[in-house]
Each structure stands twice: as structure tokens, then as C-alpha cells.
């Protein structure tokens, strides 16, 4: 058993706060982090008192330096790796959560760090943040949804530049392309994250869940089906009052 937590989970009022906590490794994403993040995220999702989930990274250097490559390729085979991926589908869990997910990121936001950010709804960055997708350079394919979520969030041209060319993106550019929604100073990042989370926590959770569901599912449908979904969701909200 690992003796220290690599994901910290704290409840502050209606906000469930998850902290990636391997600061000596710039919170590099490893198997233990995957398992602890899955458990903490599930706990926050299942807890009716938690209305908003906030994710940040410990330490001064960054939110997440990407996958811990020292653990790569330790699965006995591709068949086993694939089975494990879907047995503990952390990224699917992110996508299924109907509570607002807020990311507060700083410093190095690399590879899976960018992908975790993209799986959150509201994304705040400190002005020192640098975003980068180095997978192709390492002969890897992003595996936490980056090839899908980046193009949907920041457009095709910017995505290809990050994914194929490993081009770094600074915080200002990330703001202008919609990778993040607000920039703040590094020292106020967590305060701002909580402030945003608390505004969201004051809203009707059923409406928020319904809005998330309708937007996300609707994007995968032809427009007429999306309009139908929106009407059904509205009717459900009204009848539940």
C-alpha cells in the first residue's frame, strides 16, 4: 500500500476540492493517481452535499506534468491494458458527472494535465500557465480524450498545432482560444477557484445537471433531435417544481 495520498479530497461547504498531490513530480499522472482520482471523484459525485467539484494541483511548479512515463508499458499486454482502461474508466466518469467541474490550473499543464482541464466545464488559469501536448514527440497518442476534447473546445487549427507540432501555448493565448475562461494571478488562483465554485453551488443543481446534459448530448445529435431533448429536459424541470 502506498503510504501517502497522491490525490487529496476535502469538502468545504458545498464544494468538493480535489488536489493532485505529487508536487515533487509536478503532479505527474501515475496509476496510483488514476485510482485515487477515480475514488475521490466518485465520492464527490455520489455525495449529495457536494454541488460543485474543484480540481487543482499542489506545489509551485504546475498543475500536472502529464503521464508518469516511468510507469508506461508496465501492463502485460495491449489486451490487458485495454481491459483495464474500460474497467476503471476515469475519463468516462469525468464526462458522466452532472455537477459543475471547475479546474484551477497553474504552471506546467502538460499532456494529461491539458486533457483533465478540457474535461472540466469552467477553467481558470494563473497567468504563468503553459499548456503543451508532447505525445506525438514521444511517439504516443493522447489517451485521456485530448484528440477529441481539444478540437471541440478550441477548434481544429489550434488543436492540430498543439497535437502534431507540440507547440506550447501560453496563458494569454489559452484565454483567447477558449482553453481557459479566465486568467488570474498565481497567488489568487485557489481563492478565485473557490469563488467561482461557490457561485455555481448557489444555483439549482437540477438545472445545472440538465444544462450540462442537454449541451453535451445535444452536440452529438442532429439539431432537431437536440431541440427535442431540450424541450423534454425543460418539461422535466418544470414538472419537478
Amino acid at each position, binding site marked *: 500500500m502506498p503510504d501517502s495520498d497522491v490525490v487529496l479530497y476535502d469538502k468545504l461547504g458545498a464544494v468538493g476540492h480535489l488536489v493532485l498531490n505529487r508536487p515533487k513530480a509536478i503532479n505527474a499522472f501515475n496509476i496510483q493517481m488514476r485510482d485515487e482520482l477515480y475514488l475521490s471523484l466518485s465520492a464527490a459525485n455520489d455525495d449529495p452535499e457536494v454541488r460543485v467539484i474543484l480540481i487543482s494541483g499542489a506545489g509551485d511548479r504546475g498543475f500536472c506534468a502529464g503521464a508518469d512515463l516511468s510507469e508506461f508499458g508496465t501492463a502485460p499486454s495491449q489486451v490487458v491494458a485495454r481491459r483495464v482502461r474500460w474497467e476503471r474508466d476515469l475519463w468516462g466518469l469525468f464526462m458522466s458527472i452532472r455537477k459543475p467541474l471547475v479546474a484551477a490550473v497553474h504552471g506546467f499543464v502538460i499532456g494529461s494535465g491539458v486533457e483533465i482541464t478540457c474535461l472540466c466545464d469552467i477553467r481558470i488559469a494563473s497567468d504563468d500557465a503553459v499548456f503543451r501536448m508532447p505525445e506525438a514527440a*514521444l511517439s504516443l497518442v493522447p489517451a485521456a480524450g485530448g484528440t*477529441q476534447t481539444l478540437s471541440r473546445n478550441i477548434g481544429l487549427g489550434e488543436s492540430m498545432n498543439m497535437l502534431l*507540432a507540440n507547440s506550447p501555448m501560453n496563458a494569454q493565448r489559452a484565454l483567447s482560444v477558449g482553453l481557459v475562461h479566465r486568467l488570474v494571478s498565481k497567488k489568487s488562483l485557489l481563492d478565485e477557484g473557490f469563488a467561482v465554485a461557490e457561485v455555481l453551488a448557489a444555483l439549482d443543481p437540477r438545472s445545472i445537471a440538465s444544462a450540462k446534459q442537454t449541451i453535451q448530448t445535444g452536440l452529438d445529435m442532429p439539431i432537431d433531435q437536440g431541440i427535442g431533448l431540450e424541450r423534454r429536459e425543460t418539461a422535466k424541470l418544470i414538472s419537478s417544481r
Partner: protein
Amino acid sequence: MADFDPSVTLTRDGRVAIITLNRSEHRNEINVDMTFDLADACLSAQQDDEVWAVLLTGSGDIFCAGTDESELASGWQEASALDRLRVCESVASIDKPVVAALNGDAIDQGLEIALACDLRVASTAASFGLTHLEKGFIPWDGGTQRLPRLIGTSRATEMILSSRILASDEALDLGLVNLVTEPEDVVSRAIELASTIARHGPTANRYIKEAVMKGLDMTLEQGMRLEADLSFLLQSASDRAEGLASFLERRPPTYTGK
């Protein structure tokens, strides 16, 4: 054959295949000869295992001003005439990364060709537009589909309906091009970008391009499945082991494409 000047040339710079539209005396306008030559060049770049990235540019100071209308004079009224002049599927079917070096104007079919590439480096002096509606047409080589997917429905609709010509700074703001540089630096900057990409794992590049492009037409969940499966498939490649080893040993990787 001494005076024979091919309408499209194919050269190599390291791992980068360079395809050049080579009819600058006709503003690199697409005619039927070029359609065949460009299709051939694209196929060669696609099939050559030594090529890991492709660069597409124009000779002279124009990238491509559109379609050679003299080709259309006789058959302009027939839809089948356009079939002989379409080139963008040839470009888009290259599964390796393709960088457009927009050394000058990319208008009408010229812009459609640029849209069929993955990344665009443009000259500060270049202009961009799809002006088909002014002639009673619509973009017919992929423009109505690729432009909205690149810059969003709102901006694409405005560009196409108004037949508006954009300068390079606006093209950069809209995300129509990735990078703008002085005219004399466009090709060298684009080769630099293509060479950077060609230093990455070639199979990873191709799988990433496939996951992004195919994923656009899928639900998010289906796209996640495709990405994951390509990522597992890549685990069987020796380049993947080399990528990890080079990272852990803090040295540049030596990929083989295997």
C-alpha cells in the same frame, strides 16, 4: 523534354516531401493537368515510407488564385466539368501531417486546398477568400464543409456569403491560419514546422490526425473509443518503446516508422 516544366513539383527536404504548385505565370490556377499532377504528387508522398510530413506551397508570390477559368469556358454549365478539376480529396487523403506554406494569396479553390491541409503558415502579404457567390456559384472543392469546421459556422457563413477577402492578420485572428510571417520567411518557417513534426513518431502523428479528423464526425464517446483503440494499437510499435526510452534517458529519439 528539356522545355517541359511540370505543373506540380515534388521534392524532398529530409523527411519532408515538398509539393509545389508550379504555374506561377498563371497565378498557380488549377487546370486539368495540375489536377492529375497534384493527385500524383499526393499519392507519392502518401506511399513513400521515408516521408513523415508533407509541405504544400506555390511557386512565385501567389499560393493559388483559384481555378483556371479557361478550363471551364466550354463545360462550365455542366457539373461533370468540375469533377475533373477537384483536387482537395487528394490532399485530404494524405494520412500524414500536411503543412500549407501560403506564400501568397489563396483564393477560391486555392483557399480550399489550404483548408484540406492540417496547419497553415501564411505570408503577411497574403489574402484569403471564397468568392464563388460573386460568380453565381458555391465553393465546390470542400470549402462549404471544411471552412465551418475550421473557423466555426458563424464566421464561415459570413465569409462565404459576403465573398469577402481577408488580410493575413484577420485570418490569424479567426484561426484560418496558424502562423503569419514575412513573405520571404514563409517557406523556411513552414519547412521548420514540418520538420519539427517529422521528428515526432510518424505512426503517432498519423493516428493523432486520424483520431482528430474522424472524431469530428463521431459522438464524443465514440471518439474516445477510437482514440483509446489507436493508443493501444500503437503500444505494439517499436517507435513507442523508443519514445519512452529516449525520454527516460534524456536524449533525442531515433524513430524508424516501425
